[in-house]
């Protein structure tokens, strides 16, 4: 039986950060897609069932919080884990992420090994 690689959507308006996360997660064995803002992410999620989302906070068109809320709302309704990553490291920011529906909040730049570890952990329930 062939191994199904979990699908991850990396959402960040900085092309450099997207490239960085895409490479890390790709090397860790994930199938990675990209979105440049929250709106693109919602559109992608409506046509593809992702197993994990890695979402930035500050983005044009639709920011990370609204994006996560929309992913959790009836519009998309994904139960997949959402990992939010931001350069903002205040306590209130994390709470806002959790209120929107995120499952973990990390501060940029994320340690490469930690990102891979957390991603593997959060997608460990995906059927092989």
């Amino acid at each position, binding site marked *: 039986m062939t191994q199904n690689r979990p699908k991850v959507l990396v959402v*960040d*308006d*900085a*092309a*450099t*950060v997207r*490239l*960085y996360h895409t*490479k890390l997660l790709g090397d860790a064995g994930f199938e990675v*897609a990209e*979105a*440049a803002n929250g709106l*693109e992410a919602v*559109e*992608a999620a*409506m*046509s*593809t*069932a992702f197993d994990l989302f890695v979402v*930035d906070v*500050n983005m*044009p068109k639709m920011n990370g919080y609204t994006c996560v809320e929309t*992913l*959790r*709302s*009836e519009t*998309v*309704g*994904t*139960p*997949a*884990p*959402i990992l939010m990553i931001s*350069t903002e*490291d*205040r*306590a209130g920011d*994390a*709470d806002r992420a*959790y*209120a929107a*529906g*995120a*499952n*973990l*909040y*990390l*501060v*940029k*730049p994320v340690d490469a*090994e*930690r990102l891979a*570890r*957390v991603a593997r*952990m*959060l*997608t*460990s*329930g995906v059927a092989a």
Partner: protein
Amino acid sequence: MNPLLAQFLAEAADLLTQVDEGLLQLERDPGDPELVNEVFRAAHTFKGSSGLFDFPELTRLTHAAEDLLDAVRSGRLALDSGMADDLLAAFDLIRGWLAHVTVHEQLPATAGPAAQSLITKLRGPLGGESAPAASDSAPAPSAVAVAVRGPDWLDVFDAEWLEKTASWLSTTSATMRFVRYTPDEGCFFRAEDPLHLMSQVPAPAVLALIQPFEWPPAETYDEYQCLIGFALATRAAVGELNHLFRYVPDQVEIVELDGDAIRRHLSGEEPPEPPPAVVAEAVVQSQAENVELARDAYAILAAAQRSLTVDSPSGARLSAVARSVAAAASALGVPVEAEEPDIESLTARVATLLAETPAPAEEPPPVVAPPPAERAPSDRARTDDPGGQVGTRILKVDQEKVDHLMELVGELNVAKNGLTFLADAAEEEFGSRVLGRRIKDQYSGLHRIAEELQAAVMDVRMLPLSVAFSRFPRLIRDLSRRLGKTVELVTEGEDTMADKDVIEALGDPLVHLVRNSLDHGIETPAEREAAGKAPAAKITLTAVADGDAVIVEIADDGRGIDADRVKRKAYEKGLISEDELESLTESDAVDLIFRPGFSTADQVSDLSGRGVGMDAVRASVEKLGGTVSMRSQFGRGTSTRLRLPLSMAVTQVMVVSVAGQRFGIPVDLVVETVRVPGAELGRVLHSDVVVLRGEVVPVIDLARALDMPWTPDPAADRAILIVSLHGQRVGLLVEQFHREVDVILKPMEGLLAYAGEFSGTALLGDGLVLLVLNMKEVLSLAARAQ
């Protein structure tokens, strides 16, 4: 260079341009919240990307700029020119660093001190603002003045090191900052990383750990409780430390000490207690990995607990929390048999896992089937068809690939032209008129396709003129301040499209014209008011499409050109004769500015050189196949107009022959072709002329001009090509007209580059190399041949 760095540098250029443009607009319209937001976002995105690389000064400087912008956008500060200057200087410095990184892949050695100087300036306005905020948080994190005596916790530092440091500080009359950071025991649950935070302190001298007075017994030891404090000596500024620890001010104590203060501490009445021995414990790699895994799992559980506390999740959010809890439990080795979507049992489970980790959890509670409504969203998500990915609509293409495609299109045009020769051959050599006609029909179809393909490819190379205009707001701002003048820049028609090569070649002429306008054209505010003008001058950059050309105009409302002064200066420099001095019209006089060696600036300025640039401007524009013209009203302003071809790739030429040799003449110069009886050619003074519809047109014998042996048959009609050069019509006597063809013009190279009468060569469809004439030079040759 690794691709991630290359991507970063490409993106950085875009983001820094956004910042620059935004800041200049903000100076004009400080109250625009949307504009501040845009600038902040560009700086913020840039900072986030820079954090991926080992460029600490870059990230710190950007962070300082971002904090200032954040204060502006939240309304705490109003942007003024000083702040704009500092921000522009910061991003200029960053731009220079990135140029260095492009070559060396690391920041220059001078980055640290250069960044520090600007960081101090950028934090200046924030410093004043943060003073009341600091008083709100207790205790105040920093001492206002140098402390008289060191705090007790200074004992954690080695006494010998303290003694040496005290000597050094006294000798250099310097001070040093000492920081004690006592993280909260539960800091890990707030995603704080005390060691990481300490490692961010710039210019550290010594870092020491403050261990607890007594370690807890092993059976009650909780490795997720932070029991260690930190003490650090650093040369960083107090303001910078305050900023770094701004989120944990209650856990930080910062003192500034000089040598005397340290000595007073060392010579305290009671001898210091020896510090507890530091025991370093080796950690096996596999154990470290398990610890890391457990820490991550714990972070996820803490986040889940936070999610359940902040709000009561339901639906997809509840399912997601349950899933993440199951994942963390699995990583901790606690088996989970089913999802538990109800909030109460999930909350209890999370609490249990957090409390008992790494102890094994209790038996899971009995499984309850989830209600169907809860299952619906996840079912729908799972059964979604994996449709096509939503991709971006923008495709970045290498310039080289587009250029290659352009060359292929050009060669397709050349190959296409071969069909016309084939049609001729079919009729003349094989006597088949039917075949010739069919070939011509095929040629028509191919010609249409080739033209559309060429238009499409050239469209790819089209850029808006805003690309060329975007540098001028900044240039004008800097120069006008330096010159003590007030200038407003107005741009119109920036959306006009032109070829990328044309736009790039346009850059230098435009810069020169703008500099000249600022330096020589525009008066000082005092002069302007004396002349009854508004103190602020206006420079207008306009772009407009005109058929197959684009017109760019630079106009100012400055002093204009004094035609009399120009004529006098030209006469003094020997550019014109005394007769011309008397007879030149005002517009002819203005044109003198474009002569080489001309300059009316009596004092040389380092901004625009010695005025020789105007002939360089005309030369570079004409090299592009364009023209330059200038109009001026003394006392009211000057306007310079550049007309440029839309594209330089494909040239249409009219093929003519003389003495059996074929030549090309650019079609845009051709007015018409006429045949006149030989008798109608007249002679005026030393030139042949022909009268066309009442106009006397001089005629140049092309064969004589090119020194070729050919004499027209006296009895035959004369074939004359009428061309327009600088608004003047000239006739060109040739042997035969041929056809118009599209050619790829290639410049002459090597020794042939000195043959000025040819602007280049082109390959015809039948393999013949066509020489394309430079009409200006040909007319000069003809004049000398008279």
